[in-house]
């Protein structure tokens, strides 16, 4: 690939990160791709929107496995042939909690919480960690130097460092050994007006355990739900204002 075409690929990817456009990809030869830029269906990312999710921790545990598997399939992580499974990235995970005093238990998915005041963005030396105007927190893998400061700063252990060669990359989700990654709230789908893969998977199983939508739009399902039920955000005491709300914890 020439420098020039490389540059245009970079540009397309960066536009995607900024939410200004969606990229279409044509594979010319194995490993060589051509990307074209289209305007995002939903228009550029704007602070008029605040994407978020509401997770119901009382939902039957099985739906979280569906969500995790859907994320793996969509984003291309979690390959079982990796050398060390223990250092594998996990963009979303199923966490079990138990109150030792009452014995009450719950399971819930934990992924990037897409904070309004993300510590990972504050500490990143290069600005690779960033928050789009619509609240989605992303890593620009082209300027991430792999210092892992953002992982130190994340209160939720939601970032992963790519410890070994990546296999089975998805065209819409460039990944790279030596850089940091996390849940993107399926920004490539959201920009096309779709829901994140985990939400679709849960819905497809007939469950409403995750509601996705624009918290700023009073008519959206999620805004109505958070105004009706008491919801919680993990470690709200830290004041980072996550975009992921939970019920039943």
């Amino acid at each position, binding site marked *: 690939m020439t420098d020039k075409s490389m540059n245009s690929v970079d540009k397309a990817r960066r536009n995607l990160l900024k939410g200004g456009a969606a990229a279409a990809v044509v594979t010319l030869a194995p490993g060589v791709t051509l990307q074209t830029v289209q305007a995002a269906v939903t228009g550029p990312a704007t602070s008029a929107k605040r994407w978020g999710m509401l997770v119901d921790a009382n939902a039957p545990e099985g739906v979280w496995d569906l969500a995790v598997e859907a994320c793996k399939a969509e984003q291309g992580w979690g390959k079982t042939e*990796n*050398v*060390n499974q*223990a*250092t594998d*990235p*996990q963009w979303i*995970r*199923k*966490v*079990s*909690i*138990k*109150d*030792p005093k009452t014995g009450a238990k719950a399971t819930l998915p*934990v992924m990037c919480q897409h904070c309004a005041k993300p*510590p990972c*963005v*504050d*500490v*990143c*030396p*290069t*600005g*690779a960690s960033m928050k789009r105007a619509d609240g989605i927190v992303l890593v620009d893998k082209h*300027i*991430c*130097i*792999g*210092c*892992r*400061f953002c*992982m*130190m*700063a*994340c*209160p*939720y*252990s939601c*970032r*992963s*460092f*790519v*410890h*070994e*060669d990546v296999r089975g990359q998805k065209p819409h989700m460039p990944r*790279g*050994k*030596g*850089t*940091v990654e996390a849940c993107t709230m399926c920004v490539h789908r959201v920009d096309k007006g779709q829901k994140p893969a985990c939400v679709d998977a849960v819905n497809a199983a007939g469950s409403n355990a995750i509601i996705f939508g624009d918290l700023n739009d009073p008519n959206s399902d999620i805004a109505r739900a958070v105004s009706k039920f008491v919801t919680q955000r*993990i*470690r709200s005491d*830290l004041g980072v204002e996550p975009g992921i709300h939970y019920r039943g*914890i």
Partner: protein
Amino acid sequence: MAADTTVYKEIEGKGGDYFSLIGWLGVMILAALYAVYNMEHHGHVVTGMTNAVVWGTPHVLAIFLIVAASGALNVASISSVFGRTHYKPLSRISALTAVALLAGGLMVLVLDLGRPDRLIVAMTYYNFKSIFAWNIILYNGFFVIVLAYLWMMMERRMNPHSKKIGMMAFLWRLILTTGTGSIFGFLVARPGYDAAIMAPLFIAMSFAFGLAFFIIMISVSYKASDRPLGDFILFKMRNLLGVFIAAVLYFTAVQHLTNLYAAEHAGIEAFILWDGGIYTFLFWVVQIGLGSLIPLAILFNPASGRSCQGIMTAAGLVIIGGIAQLYVIIIGGQAFPLQLFPGMEVSSSFFDGAVHSYAPSHWEVMLGLGGIAAAILIIVIAVKYLPLLPTSLSDAKIDPHHKVK
């Protein structure tokens, strides 16, 4: 102030010892580069790090060197800023040591990045909200200021200005160490770190570690080059080291006592002080015992405190204790699980709620030691080609009126 009559001269640097030292240092640096090649080729999967313990042994040794660097500049600062003329002859080598230690530390830090090839990105994209980005500027500035300071001390015409820039270097190093300490202080979610005490603690640590390294380096190079090193200057540095060790102990005590007072930090405190296994051992036995109390006993014992061997042993122990201290802070602080759901029992495939295990791989150790070797190599070569070391540090030379008691 009397005119400076100190004669500075390059060391001979011809003997077999000199070249074998260079050879060994070279081998250590090559080993570090080989380790980096492996870490980059296979990925960090070959290291001991995980997604929970993301900063490992290279960070411990790199931060040790960076912290010690600013401390090594102290000897020069004491003479130029605080007017203690007996330290003046050591100012040049103090500045050079500071630069060398910083270079070694940064080498390790940069080579441990996931993408060291993107160093240019780190230099061109700045997020000014990031304390890390500020540190990059502080480190670069430190090089510029200290090298200018060194030059002004060595160039007779510039001598009159050296005091001013010496002052600047002193202030810069205080800011730099504060910046390094703040890397941890800003991590609000980590109970082991988010304390304002981190900045003064790191400054005290830098004084102690930098001086300990400096004492060993001066003693060894004067012995090896057959130049006289009098007790007066050695005992001055001994006393200072004692004060610095005590200061680190004091700030360490404050750090843990204030943390114990805050209920939300009870977990991490119990972990470090009581049941953290290797971290508890490193804290009490290596950092406090071997690295602080024993050196204090050696330094202020009437017999061992008056022998060069005794003082060097104490300084060596301070270095070992310092590395242990940083290991406990950096790795212990990450091994203790983040509290996503305080008060709950938590488990997951991502090791939530569990103490994270970390064991350094040989690659990481090789990389870290390579940084130390690089720092020493810079010093060893510089003293051969530049007039940095005074020909004599005998008592008569340093302070003719002084009688060592």
